[in-house]
């Protein structure tokens, strides 16, 4: 298996940009806000790179030039008010440049008014429960069978043989493309956190509190995430899968689920 990972590592290094993106960087995601978040991330990243080039550059020049082995006599200066004022003010300006777009995105992230669909998400040790507020649909979503079989210690099943190992559920959350989906997130026991990187949403599920967040997916597809707040021994085994489908397909999905009564009765 070691050789397999090393080989796949080499594969990653030489592969096209697409796979390298997934392995190295934050996904750009499928909502307007996930793209904005990605842009913010890249903006701050590049600022850090440029600051790093300047600071480390000066330091490296100094390390090369100002060494005793080159016979340099040390200078004696020990302060310069001008320099210190300059390198206090420049960072403040850079921070302001970063703060403005960050604040704008933050305001939009928190605006969950006028949703098209509302889903109550409840965290359990160790699975998720979804209840569509306007439809008669509610179900648990747990780790999928093949992963459950492969996960015990020395199960004898190679995780590389399991498709979407630890990232597949039995029943995904299904939402229509283009709809504003509001999630009302809470927990039944301990604190969990609901995260799907492609939707750029992470919100804690706290018992006794209902948190609100929202997304509007612009593309269809299957998007995966995981619980991101330590919630006990199976914290690593409660993935999240969101299927974004065309609006017609969503309506059909709602109807079949209401008729087949596949919903699971809950105390809620």
């Amino acid at each position, binding site marked *: 298996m070691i050789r397999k*990972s*090393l080989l*796949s*590592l080499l594969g990653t290094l030489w592969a096209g940009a697409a796979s390298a993106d997934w*392995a*190295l*960087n*934050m996904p750009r995601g499928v909502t307007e806000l996930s793209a*904005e978040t990605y842009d913010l*991330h890249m903006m*701050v990243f590049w600022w*850090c790179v440029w*600051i790093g080039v300047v*600071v*480390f550059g*000066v330091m490296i020049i*100094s*390390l090369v030039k*100002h*060494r005793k082995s080159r016979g*340099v*006599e*040390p*200078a004696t200066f*020990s*302060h*310069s008010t001008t*320099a*210190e004022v300059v390198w206090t003010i420049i*960072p*403040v300006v850079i*921070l302001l440049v970063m*703060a403005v777009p*960050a604040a704008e995105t933050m305001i939009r992230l*928190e605006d969950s008014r006028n949703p098209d669909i509302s889903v109550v998400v409840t965290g359990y040790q160790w699975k998720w429960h979804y209840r569509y507020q306007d439809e008669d649909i509610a179900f648990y979503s747990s780790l999928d069978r093949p992963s459950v079989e*492969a*996960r*015990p210690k020395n199960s004898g*099943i190679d*995780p*590389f043989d399991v498709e979407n*190992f*630890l990232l597949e559920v039995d029943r995904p959350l299904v939402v229509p493309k283009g709809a504003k989906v509001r999630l009302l997130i809470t927990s039944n*026991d*301990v*604190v969990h*956190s609901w995260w799907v990187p492609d939707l*750029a949403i992470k919100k*804690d599920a706290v*018992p*006794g509190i209902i948190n*609100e967040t929202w997304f509007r997916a612009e593309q269809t597809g299957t998007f*995966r995430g*995981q619980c991101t707040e*330590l919630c*006990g*021994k199976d*914290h*690593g*085994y409660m993935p999240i899968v969101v299927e974004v489908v065309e609006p017609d397909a969503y309506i059909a999905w709602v109807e079949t689920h209401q008729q087949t009564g596949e919903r699971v009765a809950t105390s809620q």
Partner: protein
Amino acid sequence: MTTAVAEAQDAHDEHHGPDKGIRRWLFTTNHKDIGTLYLVFSLIMFFIGGAMALVIRTELMQPGLQFVHPEFFNSMTTMHALIMVFGAVMPAFVGLANWMIPMMIGAPDMALPRMNNWSFWILPVAFGILLSTLFMEGGAPAAGWTMYPPLVLQTGDAFPFLIFSVHLMGISSIMGAINIIVTILNMRAPDMWLLKMPIFVWCWLITAYLLIAVMPVLAGAVTMLLTDQFFGTSFFLAAGGGDPVMFQHIFWFFGHPEVYIMILPAFGVVSEIIPTFSRKPLFGHDSMVYAASSIAFLSFIVWAHHMFTVGMPLSGQMFFMFATMLIAVPTGVKVFNWVATMWRGSMTFETPMLFALAFVFLFTIGGFSGLMLAIAPADIQYHDTYFVVAHFHYVLVPGSIFAVMAGAYYWLPKWTGHMYNESLGKLHFWLSTIFVNVTFFPMHFLGLAGMPRRIPDYSTQFADFNMIASIGALGFGFSQLIFVWVLLTAKKGAKATDRVWEAPKGLEWTVPSPAPYHTFDTPPKARIAQEAFE
């Protein structure tokens, strides 16, 4: 004059030298003995916590569970953090403070020597209790070092022992901090006024105030956990009208200053070492003091940046985002001043300098990821992923721990009277620096690609970088054995001179090497050393 003082002190030692055998260490009130005890204790904890880190990294080397069960894995992450934070990093800096602060300010000892003994000997008890939970019904604490309720209330028999050991660590830290403050404020050489103090002493003074301010807050928080569990209160239980999020606010009100408690003394150590090996005074001594003070003040008003996902009002998130970004300003000043200290100096690269330089480079990388984490919308993506793990290990391992290593190599000849083995020191440095990056740099990628922290197993797309990180961790762990060897053979090297290095500044270099058991029975004239700071 120095030799005359030394001879007088040697004569003095014959009457009041150390006790023999174990009594010396159990009952000592000598700041140098207690400093040694703290440093040795910290090293032992560093290896215990490190062994736990290797359990974690060995399990994470490949997808699938190979070695441990998830419950035990969670215990390992929890215990690793508690031991490294409270057992390795904090006592290491208190050890350096004990050894060096009295010698740097010209004091004969710490102001409260008996309390000093007490504050050390509480620690082995506290960690004995904490480690004993590994063998208890229900296993060691596994809810993370952050101890968030309600999860932490699901801990087995270990729960009250966890709380009690945290109380003891807090008591020890508070007593140590009081001692340091009283020593610095009352026992300086008569002509060493505050702004002329060495920067290490300044950083510790500020750190000690942070400790006194926040350790009681932690004690309060864990006491409320205790009463929630055993006495029917509901501080943090929603079912009884409590609020689990309140714990997080209280915890991080302690927790954020706590991270500066672990880095400010490191700033102090590095600010002593870089001027010595650049043969040039520290650039902007006073602005370093103001920067450290600003960082300390800001540390009290940024705590909720650990909680951008808990569901705060928009205005709260804005405040904590802007306040957090502000920290970059004084931290930047520190880095720029270190670089300006090197600029046009005459540098040599002995082991302490190498560690200090790696500190500046790698701590700055941790600072960059810290700035990225301050941007709240992006933090929502980074939060609780390996990106955060990479960030705080960059500031804590090549940050705090490298500073401790740098300080140890820098002052070791003063402590032992002999030069350590320089080539082994350099080997230790290079292996540590290479492996620390191999371990923690790939974690940035893992986090960005979506791997949450604190999980015992992961999906296959994370396999490659986890493999690299694990190889790095094993390399880093075993490289530290070189350090132990250097320490064990520390007295075999050439005799150290009193000044040890070519151009160190400060009173500690005016006493003989090894430093006599009692130094500065009469206050020294500090101005001679001080003039070097101007």
